């Protein structure tokens, strides 16, 4: 069986090949209880596991783009292009954010497929700033293979016109959601610009499609962060 951008349970009674952009995941059944998992990137084998799932299920689920070699608590979204907001202007934008793909055995995350290059950035000064996972967010990007719909809500309460180049959001409030047609969504992000340098960012908001179910199972907590080193 060959498919692409599949999310759900993998039952490899035969060999499954699932494509995600330049990555290819192959599940080869050895026997009733053993599966060989291989990950290829541009035809080069990059990871291989022997899976004996037992009573657990093998599943593939969309994940927010927060995993990488470093553990961080924040996600920096560099807006392309930047957004200019007049006094008391409000804007709500639905755009697409790259997502990651997680291969699970039961609840154990076995492997991750990254749809965009993993990068990090410092918010604030290098001396005492915050290390963030970095993503470039193209506001007018067309639907790409490995992305989820995210809603950004910005409001300018600073009393002056402002230009927003980036949003730093707490990772804890960012979850993925999936609807019955397999479309992926991410938690909404709200930004309240308070003055020239600071803004309040809230994550964990409902996605644009309220019927989409959160992964894994429970909704994220509403989490707030104050950006005080500019935006």
């Amino acid at each position, binding site marked *: 069986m060959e498919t692409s951008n599949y999310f759900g349970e993998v039952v490899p009674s035969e060999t499954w090949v699932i494509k995600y952009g330049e990555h290819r995941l192959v599940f080869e059944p050895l026997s009733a209880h053993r599966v060989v998992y291989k990950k290829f990137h541009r035809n080069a084998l990059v990871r291989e596991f022997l899976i004996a799932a037992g009573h657990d299920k093998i599943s593939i689920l969309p994940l927010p783009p927060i995993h990488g070699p470093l553990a961080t608590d924040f996600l920096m979204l560099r807006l392309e292009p930047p957004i200019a907001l007049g006094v008391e202007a409000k804007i709500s934008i639905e755009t697409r954010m790259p997502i990651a793909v997680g291969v699970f055995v039961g609840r154990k995350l076995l492997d991750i497929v990254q749809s965009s290059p993993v990068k990090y950035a410092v918010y604030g000064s290098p001396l*005492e700033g915050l290390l963030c996972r970095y993503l470039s967010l193209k506001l007018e990007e067309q639907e790409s293979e490995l992305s989820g719909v995210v809603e950004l809500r910005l409001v300018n309460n600073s009393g002056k016109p402002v230009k927003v180049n980036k949003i730093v959001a707490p990772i804890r409030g960012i979850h993925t959601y999936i609807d019955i047609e397999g479309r992926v969504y991410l938690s909404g992000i709200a930004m309240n610009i308070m003055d020239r340098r600071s803004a309040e960012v809230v994550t964990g908001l409902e996605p644009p499609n309220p019927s989409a179910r959160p992964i894994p199972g429970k909704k994220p907590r509403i989490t707030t962060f104050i950006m005080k080193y500019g935006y």
Partner: protein
Amino acid sequence: MSYYAAALMNNLENAIIDIFEDLRNFVVTYEELLLKILYASVILLASYLLAKYLVKLTTRVMEKTSPPGKVKTVARGIKFAVVFVGAAIALTLLGIDMSGLLVATGFAGLVVGLAAQQSLGELFAGLFFMSEGSVRVGDVVKIDEDLGIVEDMGFLSARIRLLSGEIVRIPNSKLMSSKIYNLSKPTALRIEVVVGISYGSNISKAVNTIRRVLESHPLVLAEPEPKILVDSLGESSVNLKVWAWVPAKMIYEIKRDIVKQIKEALDREGIEIPFPQRVVWLRTLGGREAPEHSASRSA
């Protein structure tokens, strides 16, 4: 049988009465001393329990803001002080003259101080170092030529696990007098790599090649942005300076990685990294000059 049993019981009763009588006499005779011992024991127990409570309280209050080494030191100090005061009160109650003990302690302190001058120096250096808080357990530090992770900070020395896995014990007095680079304090640090390319190479192509290496490396930070500067015109090469910000804790691994990747990328693009060469002329006896080796300025 009943006669013997009655006699035995009578003897037993007399023996018990005698024991109680002796005990009563003992208590009456030594009542004062026994009371003192009881009070002293209660004071010792109370001081021990108080010390234990204060250690718990101090640990709870300090552990959120202070490094574990400092918390342990303060807790130990409090425990020692409270138990010492309790013991002194208990001894005074027992009628032991503390002034003599204090004089003896002072004298012993002087002797110990002279004998353990070095160790006491280490101890005070350690206490000062811990209270200063510039280095904590788990920090990546460079002390002189030793680069590693602080494993433990004790009263006399600090234990550093080098990147090679070896453990180095550095006396606290040496820590006080050394230049210490704490690489864990800042969020990010800037690495600098100087790359020399031959005069015949295309500078823009080299800059773009290096930029691609930096952009594709996950641990080279996107912000602050890396910079590639054409720095100087050297004897044999055009020198490019590469500045890249990386997470502080991983600076050495990333630098090694980047240098390797830049070299490989420049090789792939056919950009030459020259090595210095000299043209040496030898004067012969006949007055003619002839080059021993001739070569261009760069390889």
